[in-house]
């Protein structure tokens, strides 16, 4: 009986604790209080170099926001990043998300590089009713499972096949017909996720797949695979490979005088290593979420500001996403006139960014649907004269695609 009473008391106390922030005006409402955003990045472990890169972009956004007067509707409140190292580990990501929410009292979170480290942190944020802005994870389920507090500026993995089909359709209108596809993908999780996406999308879009080859990273010789691609009768080759394998594959294609329309995947293709392969990489395409030469004023301004902050460095696509993620949270707080988590969440659902410094990504509008997903798009870049140049979509292209036969 006694035990029961205590339980009840505890329940009451817990209820009071939950209700407290709602009853007492939040400390965050004070005009001079900073807007605290938690940043989850891996700064040690296997993804350390990626995490450190991402952090530079988050910090640049914060610096630019504060330099231009902070959060205006909050009386010029400063944006304060609470940065934490998730050690490239899902369990640390989860624990750090929890700590930032409960101890650091952040208004929102951004992060957390890979899908594996993003999923647990996003779930914690959703459970604690704290907005979570995904920076770079492409796992489809993140914005498909009805999490109300999770938002994503990045694309979904399953959209890539669609972008390539759209691009091939566009090429067709320019008289460059590609009818039949051959696939060559590495046999790890990344390559196989892309492969299953391509095989499910391309045939339905009128691009039959004639051959579907897999290879192992570090394969010393691609002659047999290229013979298969060449003799299949395909005129388009879609790949997903690490940069080093791409160079060996591209040289094998050149050695057999086979010059199909070649589309590599993501940052592993749009990479200095691939360009270093010389002529074999010339005129190949890559599908990527963002490119530094993107013909959009905010994007060019971002690249310039980044180069000033980090001389000699050109930002990569995920850094543009991290920059936009930070900006989007600040703009939402500005629109909400509050640092309250629920108010920011509400503001995010009606946010519509078409211009200004946050309009960096290729999609014309940055907004979030009821699942928190933005209508993102990719760009197609092409290696022309030793440089990757954005050639599609037309709205942000620097130039039209060059013919495949260089």
């Amino acid at each position, binding site marked *: 009986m006694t035990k029961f009473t205590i339980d009840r008391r505890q329940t009451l106390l817990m209820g009071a604790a939950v209700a407290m922030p709602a009853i007492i005006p939040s400390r965050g409402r004070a005009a001079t209080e900073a807007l605290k955003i938690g940043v989850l990045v891996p700064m040690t472990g296997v993804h350390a170099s990626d995490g450190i890169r991402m952090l530079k972009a988050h910090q640049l956004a914060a610096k630019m926001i504060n330099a231009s007067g902070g959060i205006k509707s909050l009386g010029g409140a400063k944006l304060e990043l609470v940065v934490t190292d998730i050690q490239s580990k899902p369990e640390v990501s989860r624990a750090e998300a929890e700590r930032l929410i409960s101890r650091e009292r952040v208004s929102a979170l951004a992060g957390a590089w890979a899908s594996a480290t993003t999923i647990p942190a996003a779930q914690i944020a959703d459970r604690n009713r704290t907005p979570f802005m995904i920076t770079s994870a492409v796992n489809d389920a993140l914005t498909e499972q009805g999490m109300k507090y999770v938002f994503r500026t990045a694309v979904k993995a399953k959209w890539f096949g669609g972008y390539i089909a759209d691009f091939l359709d566009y090429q067709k209108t320019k008289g460059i017909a590609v009818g039949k596809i051959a696939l060559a993908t*590495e*046999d790890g999780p990344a390559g196989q996720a892309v492969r299953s996406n391509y095989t499910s999308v391309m045939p339905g879009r009128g691009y039959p797949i004639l051959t579907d080859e897999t290879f192992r990273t570090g394969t010393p010789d691609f*002659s047999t695979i290229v013979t298969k691609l060449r003799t299949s009768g395909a005129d388009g080759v879609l790949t997903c490979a690490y940069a080093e394998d791409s160079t060996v594959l591209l040289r094998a294609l050149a050695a057999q005088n086979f010059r199909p329309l070649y589309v590599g995947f993501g940052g592993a293709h749009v990479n200095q290593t691939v360009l270093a392969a010389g002529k074999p990489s010339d005129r190949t395409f890559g599908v990527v979420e963002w490119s530094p030469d993107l013909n959009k004023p905010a994007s060019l301004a971002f690249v310039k500001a980044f180069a000033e902050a980090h001389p000699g460095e050109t930002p990569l696509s995920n850094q543009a996403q991290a920059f936009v993620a930070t900006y989007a949270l600040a703009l939402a707080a500005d629109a909400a006139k509050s640092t309250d988590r629920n108010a920011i969440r509400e503001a995010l659902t009606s946010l519509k960014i078409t211009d200004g410094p946050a309009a960096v990504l290729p999609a014309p509008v940055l907004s979030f649907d009821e699942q928190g997903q933005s209508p993102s798009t990719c760009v197609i870049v092409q290696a022309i004269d030793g440089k990757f140049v954005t050639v599609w979509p037309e709205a942000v292209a620097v130039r039209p695609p060059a013919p495949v036969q260089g």
Partner: protein
Amino acid sequence: MSTTIFLQALLSGLTNGAIYALVAVGLTLVFGVMRIVNFAHGEFLMLAMYGGYLAFTFLGIDPILAVFLVAPVLMLMGYLLFDGLIRPALKVPEINQMAVTLGLSLLLQYLALVVFKADNLLVTQERSTASIWLGPVLIQMPQAIAALASIILLGLFYLTLRKTDLGLIMRVVSQSRDGAALSGIDISGTYRWAMAIGLGTLGIAGPLMVSALYVNPHVGQLFTLKAFVIVIVGGMGSFGGVLIGALLVGVAESIAASWLTASVAAAVPFALLILVMLLRPEGLVPAGGSR
């Protein structure tokens, strides 16, 4: 599978096999003579590949000629490695020797990471995309050069071991260390030469392989495991075995990859290893047979 693809897979397998032999021959020499399992073998290959890259990029030396520069450097490394690390390790149990070479392997990888960063570096030449067509199938030029070098090197090895005093001494030491010592043979000197030649072969492999592939701090690992499989399948310490083991692994891997998926094909060398261990644990060409 069409005939063309089968023939291409066969030819690619033979070419790859010859390249694998080029990497494995030094490993089997060191093991055959010294009974030392050198886990850092792949890392010395990585260093030789960087050597080929640096010679090409900064001195403009063709990788074929760079062999004559890099091989002596690698020989010197082998010489120093013996006196610096291996000789003290010979006094400790085998498991500790393995720990020493394993530690060296990791140390070299991380040192390379510090010096060269994780980027992939390439040697790009006119002949990077050249090829030799044999009817409907082809060999890419850089791969063909490396395979040819492998055959020449194995021939030279055979002659050295059969026809020279050094070869005779090495064979004697590998058969019985104590017996050789009792006959007045300088064991340490022989070991030192075995280590120098064993790593020196990588000085030939490195520049030729970097022009066919790429180099990064972890590239050696791609070949270390395969080289061990080849050495064990062929028969530890056997030179004939290296060639047969390497060609077998190369061809099996290549045909399997053209038939099945890459993941299954990657398991083929190891399935082969288990099969050989079960049926012929001494290897296909036991060391005694080829001496």
